[in-house]
Structure formats: structure tokens, C-alpha cells
């Protein structure tokens, strides 16, 4: 029997002893009080908390969360995107969530334990206060009854006993109600904690990935059969080689202007512009490098390289010629004495005839020929007339025009 029930029984017996047989006992028996108070006997909130810890905190995910998982996912993501990464992340996430919810369950267990402790302490304190007050009142009442003679004041004595009995019954009922309220609170705490734990248990567990299937052997044979691999291996060096050689060959093109002198022997017959080329070939130290290039060029350039150089020389010669024509307007080329004297005397005589011919009336042809050939005769005579005007164009006196024609000749 609990202390509350024992105290209640003591108060009851106290009044029974002072009532001179008028009080048989409390309406709420001490056994009922003991039973109401004893419903929580054995309740140990600390055990609830400790076993919750045992269920949850045996393992933790701090190591994985501290960086291991991040490193794993990083490398796995580099090695193989997709299924493995997804499965690993899914399982790890599943475990993390389970750890979080489980640790939340510990908090719930702690809260429940605190609530249970508070409920039981509060109910015990309430019952104790009731019993203390009851005990004090019944003690004073019993002291008063001890001084009252029931034979002289039977009515007063009976009223005092009834008052004491009513106080005891009320206190007993209050204790029982307090215990019921306490039990309801305890049941509520336990049910709430159970519901939190069941919510954690109801979370589906992702099954582990079974063993990996055997590695796919086909790649061996496929790779061995495919001729693309060696081709790719051969193709690889090819692009590298041309990349190097253009660098060697690329130098001469930049030095094309000085290039002509190196092969004057072969190309000397082709270009007709020695006047512009001869003054420039003075710097000739560079051909040595190009000869070095030409020697190994048998591998890469060969005859085509030589032809290309020749074509380049011809092109350069043509360009120089064009430049020379363009620059003739400038009084640069002096060595052109021969052509100038010849054209000057010649153009002057033909110039006058053109206007004369245009003005001179043609003699009338014989009538017979006109009729025989109606339209063939007239054109021939004027044809020579327009030609001379172009040549005799007033330009002859100008020196540059004459130089051009001399060059054309």
C-alpha cells in the first residue's frame, strides 16, 4: 500500500476511534485509494528514455555526413553517373532520415518522461496535500470529540462525527479523482510517444541493392574486332605532324619577297620583270634556311613543294609587275630610253588625217557599182579612221603615256 493509502487509513482509524462507535469507516475505502494510487506503480520514465536511447543512438550518421558521403558521391559521380549514384544517395538519405526521425524520437521520449514525472509528482503532491489537510482537521475534530460527552451532547457529538466522516469521504474521492486524472495524463503521454515511434517504424525501408551482375565481357571482343581503334591511333599522329611542318614551311611564305633570288636559275626564264626584281635581290643570306627546308621537304613537299615555290615566285613576279605598272606614274623607273624615241615621231603624222577624212566628202561612186552592191561598200573606209584617233590621242606628247606603250611593246 502506498503512503497515501496508509495515511488515509490512519485518518480513517483516527476518526473511528474518536467517534465512540458512531463512524464505521470511509465511503472510499483505503483499498480503493491504494488501488487508484497504485496504477502507476512501477512507472519509470527514466527507463523509457534509456531504452529509447538504446534503440536509436547505437549508431549515428555523423561520420558519413561529416564528409565521407560527400566524397563518395563526388567520386562515384565522376566514375559513373546514374544508377549507382542514385542508389547510394537514396540509401544514405534513407538512413539519414531514419537517424533524424529516430533522434527526434529520443526527444519525444525525453519530453514524455518529463511529462510523466511531472504528472506523477503533481498528483502525488496533490494527494499528499489533501491528506495533510484531512489529517489536521480530523485530528482537531477528534480532539474536540474527546472533550465532548456523547451522553450530554449527543447531537453535537453526532454532527462532529458526521462532519469528520464527510471530510474523509470527500478527501478519499478527491484522491481517487486525482489518480484518475493522473492516469489519463500518463496514458496520454504514453499514447503520444507510441504514436511518434510508430510513425518512425512505418517509414518504408529501401531494400539494399543485391549483388552486381557479372561484368559485361562483350567489350573485349568488340574492341578487338573493331578496326577503328588502330585507325584512330594512326590518325592521331597525323594531325600532329602537319601541325609541326606548316610551322617550318610557314616561314618562307612570310619571306616571299626575298625568296625570288634563291631560285632565279629555275624560274629565271619565266618572269619577264627583271627590272623590278634585280634591284631587290641584294639580301641573300636567307636562302640557306630554305635550302635546309627543301632538303627534308622530300618527305612532305617533294616535287609539289618545288612547284608550289615556283608558282609562288611566278605569282610574286606578276604582282611585282603589276605594282611596277601601277607605280609607273611615279617617276621611279628611269632606265627606259629605247622605247621613247620611236613612238614620238610616229604618232604625229597619223593624227591630222582623222579630222580630214571626216570632213572630206567622199567622191560619188559609179552608178553601176552602187546598184550591184547596195550596202557593202560604205563601211570599209571609215574603219581605219577611228583607230588612228585612239592612238593619236593627244597623249603622245605626254611622256608617261609614251612610256606605257613602250612597255607594252
Amino acid at each position, binding site marked *: 500500500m502506498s503512503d497515501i493509502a496508509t495515511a488515509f487509513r490512519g485518518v480513517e482509524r483516527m476518526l473511528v476511534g474518536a467517534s465512540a462507535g458512531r463512524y464505521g469507516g470511509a465511503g472510499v475505502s483505503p483499498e480503493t485509494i491504494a488501488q487508484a494510487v497504485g496504477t502507476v506503480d512501477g*512507472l519509470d520514465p527514466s527507463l523509457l528514455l534509456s*531504452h529509447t536511447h538504446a534503440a536509436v543512438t547505437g549508431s549515428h550518421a555523423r561520420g558519413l555526413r561529416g564528409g565521407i558521403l560527400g566524397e563518395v558521391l563526388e567520386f562515384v559521380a565522376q566514375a559513373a553517373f546514374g544508377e*549507382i549514384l542514385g542508389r547510394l544517395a537514396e540509401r544514405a538519405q534513407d538512413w539519414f532520415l531514419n537517424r533524424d526521425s529516430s533522434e527526434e524520437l529520443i526527444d519525444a521520449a525525453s519530453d514524455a518522461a518529463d511529462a510523466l514525472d511531472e504528472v506523477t509528482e503533481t498528483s502525488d503532491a496533490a494527494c499528499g496535500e489533501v491528506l495533510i489537510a484531512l489529517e489536521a482537521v480530523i485530528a482537531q475534530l477528534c480532539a474536540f470529540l474527546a472533550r465532548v460527552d456523547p451522553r450530554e451532547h449527543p447531537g453535537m457529538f453526532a454532527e462532529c462525527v458526521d462532519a469528520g466522516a464527510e471530510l474523509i469521504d470527500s478527501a478519499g474521492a478527491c484522491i481517487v479523482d486525482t489518480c484518475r486524472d493522473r492516469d489519463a495524463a*500518463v496514458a496520454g503521454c504514453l499514447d503520444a510517444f*507510441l504514436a511518434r515511434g510508430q510513425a518512425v517504424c512505418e517509414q518504408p525501408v529501401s531494400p539494399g541493392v543485391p549483388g552486381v551482375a557479372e561484368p559485361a565481357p562483350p567489350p573485349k571482343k568488340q574492341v578487338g574486332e573493331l578496326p577503328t581503334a588502330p585507325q584512330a591511333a594512326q590518325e592521331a599522329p597525323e594531325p600532329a605532324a602537319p601541325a609541326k611542318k606548316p610551322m617550318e614551311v610557314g616561314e618562307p611564305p612570310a619571306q616571299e619577297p626575298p625568296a625570288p633570288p634563291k631560285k632565279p636559275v629555275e624560274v629565271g626564264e619565266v618572269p619577264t620583270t627583271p627590272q623590278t626584281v634585280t634591284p631587290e635581290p641584294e639580301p641573300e643570306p636567307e636562302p640557306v634556311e630554305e635550302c635546309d627546308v627543301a632538303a627534308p621537304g622530300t618527305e612532305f613537299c617533294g616535287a609539289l613543294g618545288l612547284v608550289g615555290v615556283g608558282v609562288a615566285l611566278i605569282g610574286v613576279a606578276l604582282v611585282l609587275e603589276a605594282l611596277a605598272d601601277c607605280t609607273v606614274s611615279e617617276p621611279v623607273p628611269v632606265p627606259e630610253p629605247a622605247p621613247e624615241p620611236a613612238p614620238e615621231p610616229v604618232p604625229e603624222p597619223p593624227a591630222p588625217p582623222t579630222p580630214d577624212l571626216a570632213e572630206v566628202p567622199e567622191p560619188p561612186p559609179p552608178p553601176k557599182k552602187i546598184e550591184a552592191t547596195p550596202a557593202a561598200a560604205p563601211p570599209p573606209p571609215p574603219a581605219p579612221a577611228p583607230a588612228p584617233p585612239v592612238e593619236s590621242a593627244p597623249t603622245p606628247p605626254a611622256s608617261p603615256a609614251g612610256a606605257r606603250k613602250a612597255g607594252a611593246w
Partner: protein
Amino acid sequence: MSGIIIDHTQTLTALARMRADTEEQRQRHASTRPALPPTAAGRAFTDRGAAIAAMLQQVHEAGAARIDALRDTTDAAQAQVRVFGDVDKQFGGELS
């Protein structure tokens, strides 16, 4: 291929660390087991105490199941990465 770096060795090393940590957690998890007596909930609440004890047991088993799932998946990932490494070596051998 830009941005893709395949380092099977480091990947396997990281997976091995993860496997070791998972195994350690599994052992620690198995070292503790809840055994709440039903009467710890109070004499009049033994049914609830039993339910709570079963719930705690399920929570413990669920944690163990998740650790096992993670361990198995880590093993599978290690095996798969080894397969990738072997295939990569085979490709390299064929190409060389």
C-alpha cells in the same frame, strides 16, 4: 568528354571508407538493443508498455535494416566501379 574524370582508385578508396564507417555503425547499432519492460509504464499500463517496447524494437530493427541496405549498396557500388575499371583497362589494352 570534358568535365568527366574517371578515377577508379579514388572512387574505390572513398567507397571503402564508406563501407568501413557503415560497418562500424552496424556493429555499434547491434551492440545496443532496447528491452523496455512493459511494467516500466506503470502497473495499469503494461499493455502500453508492451506496445512501446515493441515499437522501440522496431525502431532499432529499422535502423539496422537501413544500415544493412546502405552497406549492401556500398558493396554493390564497389563491385560496379571495379567492373568499370576492368572494362576501362580492357579498352585501354585494346587501344594500345
